[in-house]
């Protein structure tokens, strides 16, 4: 299961799944489903499981009032998202890949069970928080993977996230650099191209300028990637005319498989 939070439904678009958006799991490929975790829907399922009055919970969760609570109750959104993941694992899913929100929010989310554990000393909340803490902090069950691109801001943010994660007890497996320019030129190519001068053809001069641009960018990227801690993999830049889709995901999956 690939689960995403925040209701952006990027996975639905990436896997080119037709039909209306919703918060039901959807088959995307053999053995693979995608799910967009909607806090309102998760709250509804929780309440249906808890309340004796069954159907009424469904109607209640549709009201604006309850939507406001789902939005506001401190940590409720995060708790519901994490609980949804735990339930998926308790059901028939072997692995859940969580496409977490942007770094700051993601780490905040991972800290929620510990915070609740501190607040609630006894009772069902305590039990739930404890079971989530056990799941999240067990390095045989959970790993955080930080994904960066070879850009200055992205690398800086990844470094910040790395440091902040170290203060939690959630195990971090390492970083993946995505969208890296593949090396094309070899040592000595720059010198070999230096013979081209003003008297040569325009396409040759353009090719030299383009080669210099590529070499400069490759060098800048290498410099940035050196700053990434615990690198797990580098994935190449795949350029297409369309937003990332199923074909690109399949290609990257193949590359990860080969590592």
């Amino acid at each position: 299961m690939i689960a995403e939070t925040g209701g952006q439904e990027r996975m639905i678009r990436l896997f080119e799944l037709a039909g209306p958006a919703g918060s039901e799991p959807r088959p995307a490929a053999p053995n693979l489903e995608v799910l967009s975790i909607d806090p309102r829907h998760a709250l509804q399922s929780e309440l249906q499981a808890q309340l004796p009055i069954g159907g009424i919970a469904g109607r209640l969760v549709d009201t604006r009032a309850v939507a406001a609570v789902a939005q506001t109750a401190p940590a409720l959104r995060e708790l519901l998202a994490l609980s949804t993941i735990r339930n998926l694992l308790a059901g028939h899913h072997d692995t859940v890949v969580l496409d977490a929100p942007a770094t700051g929010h993601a780490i905040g989310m991972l800290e929620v069970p510990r915070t609740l554990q501190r607040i609630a000393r006894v009772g069902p909340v305590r039990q739930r928080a404890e079971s989530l803490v056990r799941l999240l902090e067990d390095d045989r069950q959970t790993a955080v993977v930080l994904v960066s691109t070879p850009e200055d801001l992205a690398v800086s943010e990844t470094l910040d996230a790395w440091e902040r994660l170290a203060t939690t007890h959630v195990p971090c497996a390492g970083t993946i650099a995505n969208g890296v320019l593949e090396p094309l030129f070899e040592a000595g190519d720059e010198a070999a191209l230096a013979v081209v001068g003003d008297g040569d053809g325009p396409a040759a001069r353009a090719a030299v300028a383009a080669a210099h641009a590529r070499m400069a960018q490759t060098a800048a990227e290498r410099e940035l990637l050196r700053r990434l801690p615990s690198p797990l993999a580098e994935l190449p830049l795949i350029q297409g005319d369309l937003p990332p889709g199923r074909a690109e995901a399949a290609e990257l999956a193949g590359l990860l498989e080969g590592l």
Partner: protein
Amino acid sequence: MSLEAVLQGKRIVVCAGAGGVGKTTCAAAIGMAAAGRSMRVLVMTIDPARRLAGALGLPDIGDEPHRVDLTGRGMPAAGRLDALMLDAKGTFDRLVREHAPTTERAERILRNPIYRQVSGAVAGSQEYMAMERLWELHAEGGYDLIVLDTPPARNALDFLDAPGRVMRFIEGRALRLLLRPGLRAGRLGLRVLGSGTQVMMSAVERLTGLTLLEDVSEFLGAFDGMYEGFRDRAERVGELLASERTTFVLITSAEPEPIGEAEAFWQALVEHGMPFGGAVVNKVHPDHLQGRGRRGVRSRAQRQLVDAGVPEAVATRAAANLDGLQALASRDRTAIERLERLIAPQPLLCVPRLDHDVDDLDAVSAVSRHLER
């Protein structure tokens, strides 16, 4: 020339667009260009990742304006560039203290868990507080121009509706519904909802271990009577943003996805009657052929390189690289032309992908020079 047209007569520039397109760097570059016209400029960012700090080479940057050191960059003596990173919670707290009738009441609100959630994380409070801080600084009048760098948004409405969403929350119509189940006992529907809601609320409390009902009622009680002040203020901010002193500038890269979002953003701005100044397309792939056609360029480059004395294998690589980069350049050009037609007669400014991707003051300065071309 074109940037001149965008800035003409404006006091506020709102930079909007998707994430990852270099929005903060462009906002800072617009600020630097304005400072180059002898203006006193403030660049404000909302991003929690301290991006502006990075882009402007500031080691530490607080809720207060911080002077950017522009020595040696050929700035006119009167030109000045300040930067500020918004502290959304701090601004909200200040606003509460200002509007609360007593210090005691203000403290009660600031301690309330619901308030803390709203001021920190409720969708829209960052944007709302950015507008508040913008209004404060605009009203103080210390600047000729304020450039606001907004958080990345999928659509313009997220930004424009932010004050409305937060105001509706504080007003608490939805929350009040939870608290007064028997309020309209004559209407059966509401009563059923009310009692069911209480059952549900206690279930939520069991779920989170929090005293939700108590917190909500305290939150609403504490804000009682303050709503009007907040609303008046939000209305004035809204008027300022829609006025002719303000202009929205779209920042995008030439990638298909951000360009698509920029088009949708433009649509929303127009529909809302917001003042639109133009677009900046950042990270454009340079056209090494300077407009000459791409057809057959790979074999042409290969031949010409070999003729010039470049070894065959190197020529093959260089020709393939040129072809690949030109493909990107031509894709960019198509997207740019489409956006340009859409937003005409407002200008579209292009900034090429810079060789070194380090977001320091030099990069800001380089982008700024391209905006001036």
